[in-house]
């Protein structure tokens, strides 16, 4: 299928085949057909009834069922050809059974079928059928010496219908194209540029916060301040906190971070471990409180807090000091706001 064919399909899918792929549209068209029959009865079209006229009216009804196929796609070639053939056959009957040129309902209705094929996504069949209609009417009018005003009256609604079909098709394509504009390469590039801007601003803000946190210690080292126990303790806490955030962004929560810092300051070895997550996740507040309490309770030795491999929503705390133990906090890891993934640092 070429690009044009693809556009036809996209337009048809976006608009329910231009509104024709519904049962309601089918029965509404059938109702329109019945009003034509009523009008024909008033005009005496069926007096006396002839097989040719009845067959032509039945054929356009069949055309309605073909045209309103409940599929969000343009008609297949076979169906489109059948609708075109039905419309042209009805045109021939409508014209040859008329003695003088004037507005004829059967001709109008067969035009609707062709014009609606334009809207549905079968422009080639619709236009070819429409051209055939016009040529046939003009040829018949010339051959039978009909007055030009009669031919104009006969073709007025068909011509309006075809223009309407073209407008219908063009506007529906515009509507669908406008809604899908965000899929274009240009829109993608704009989106990536804007996202990069968001990321850069976030990067700078986070870096500024990291800088503010580490600058006092780095400045002391740069200035040659002697490294005593207090500096050692502060450096150890700072280093551990930064490393935790890099290794276990999922577990970074104010309560856990503070508890880990306090424990490290007491000399407890604290390690937070969590695998990288493909989707944004964070630690639940209640779970964070339980983890923080467990870390605070450790008075010596080490504490390892990890997100489970088997159950990525559970957090396990293992202590090996004077109070060794193992605690599991289920449902601790919960989805985070997808619009703003939690920072990895």
């Amino acid at each position, binding site marked *: 299928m070429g690009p044009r064919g693809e556009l036809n399909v996209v337009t048809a899918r*976006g*608009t*329910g085949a231009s*509104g024709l792929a519904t049962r*309601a*549209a089918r029965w*509404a068209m059938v*109702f*329109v057909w019945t009003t034509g029959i*009523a*009008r024909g009865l*008033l*005009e005496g079209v069926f007096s006396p009834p002839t097989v040719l006229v009845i067959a032509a009216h039945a054929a356009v009804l069949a055309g309605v069922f073909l045209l309103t196929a409940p599929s969000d796609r343009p008609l297949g070639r076979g169906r489109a050809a059948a609708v075109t053939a039905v419309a042209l056959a009805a045109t021939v009957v409508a014209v040859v059974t008329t003695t003088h040129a004037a507005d004829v309902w059967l001709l109008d209705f067969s035009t609707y079928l062709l014009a609606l094929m334009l809207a549905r996504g079968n422009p080639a069949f619709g236009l070819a059928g429409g051209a055939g209609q016009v040529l046939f009417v003009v040829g018949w009018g010339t051959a039978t010496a009909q007055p030009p005003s009669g031919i104009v009256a006969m073709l007025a609604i068909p011509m*309006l219908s075809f223009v*309407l079909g073209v*407008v219908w098709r063009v506007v529906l394509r515009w509507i669908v194209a406008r809604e899908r504009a965000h*899929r274009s390469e240009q829109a*993608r590039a*704009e*989106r*990536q540029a*804007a*996202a990069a801007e*968001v*990321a850069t601003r*976030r*990067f*700078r803000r*986070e*870096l500024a*916060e990291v*800088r503010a*946190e*580490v*600058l006092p210690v*780095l*400045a002391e*080292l*740069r200035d040659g301040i002697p*490294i005593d126990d207090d500096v*050692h303790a502060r*450096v150890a806490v*700072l*280093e551990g*906190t*930064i490393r935790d955030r890099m290794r276990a962004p*999922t*577990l*970074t*929560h*104010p309560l*856990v*971070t503070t508890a880990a810092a306090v424990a490290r300051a007491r000399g407890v070895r604290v390690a937070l471990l969590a695998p990288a997550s493909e989707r944004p996740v*964070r630690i639940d507040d209640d779970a*964070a409180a339980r983890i923080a309490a467990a870390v605070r309770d450790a008075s010596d030795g080490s504490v390892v807090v990890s997100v489970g491999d088997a159950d990525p929503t559970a957090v396990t705390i293992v202590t090996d000091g004077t109070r060794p133990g193992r605690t599991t906090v289920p449902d601790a890891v919960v989805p985070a*706001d997808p619009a*703003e993934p939690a*920072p*990895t*640092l």
Partner: protein
Amino acid sequence: MFRGLRPGVAHRIPGAPRMSPAPSRSPRERADRRVAWLVVLGGMLSVVGQALPDFLAQAALFPVWWNAAGLLATAALVALAAVGLWLPQRLLRVLWWSVPALVVTLQLSSYAVLDSGAPPVSPWVWRLEPAALTLLVFVARPAVAVGATIVAGGTVALSAWMFTGAVPLIVAWNTPFHMSEIGFVVIFLGIRNRVIVLNESEDTARRAAEQSAVAAAIADREAGLARLVHDEVLSVLNAALMFAGPPPQVLRDEAATAVGVLDRAIVERDRDPRLVPAAVAAEQVRERLAASLPEVRVEQAAGAPVPSHVLDAVAAAALEAVRNAHRHARAARVAASVRVRAGGIRVVVSDDGVGFDPRAARAGRMGLAESIAGRMADIGGAAGVESAPGEGTRVWVAWDPAAS
């Protein structure tokens, strides 16, 4: 610690730019506005091709006020076709109600005001009915819109019957034709519903694409931030933990470098497009490494210039290789060589230390995987490690403009 970061909590970014001009109207409003515009645009064919010629022919048969009201309805349809895409939603809804109501009222009154001596006619206002009644699709329930269209199709016949006691043949002929306009109404109901679904799904896709783009950009930036902190901050803090008393000069220099790097990174612009001449590029890399390594040799510096951001990445990756050698290799000799040629650059850091089995190195180790290989991958470059236990280590980082 990290008070401002609020660890683990979603970070809001005040004033963050919108990804792309997201639609300001709801999917339903957008669908109604555009499909209604299609209705009146098609209706213009009927107005120009049928209603106005009939008006010119019948103007004398109807009173001025009735014609004026009909022209007002016509003008409203023309206005909807001309500016319907931009009118306020509230005004649109008023017009979508009032135009069909006015047309039906005129049809109902047509035979009451028709000149008593005039022949029976199909009133010109009747030509406005297809477009006018289809507008009910956008303000009324579907059943009401369909029912109103059928009833409206019979209003001229009803008017003739009420005010003259009979229905003229021309009206009787045209009544089924006008009732058949429910075909339009039903088809446009279908179009409207499908376009609403389309708009909703495209809005969802647009939001997902925006979120995906932001997530990817943030992940990229955060990987860079993690590398920078690992290389520049953690390395100094780790070293500090190994000393007591006055810090040695090398540690003081590293701390000063870290402060400078953090300061520069904060004001960093997006990728620097500048090109650095080959000789300058080689010298800059040599200077960066020389702070930690006395033995740095420039083997070649010729050919096309090197992009500035490539130079930064290569130097940082090579510096991390030097640090790794100092930390882990227990080497007697560590050396580096720099080669700039044909717009590309290659740095090799080698030591005669204890070596290791690269296959056994833990996957995802920050220094090797991220600070060296990850950094090079980001710029389209490459990195490699050649080592074996007891045989020293050779780390190379390279960027080739043709390959990238």
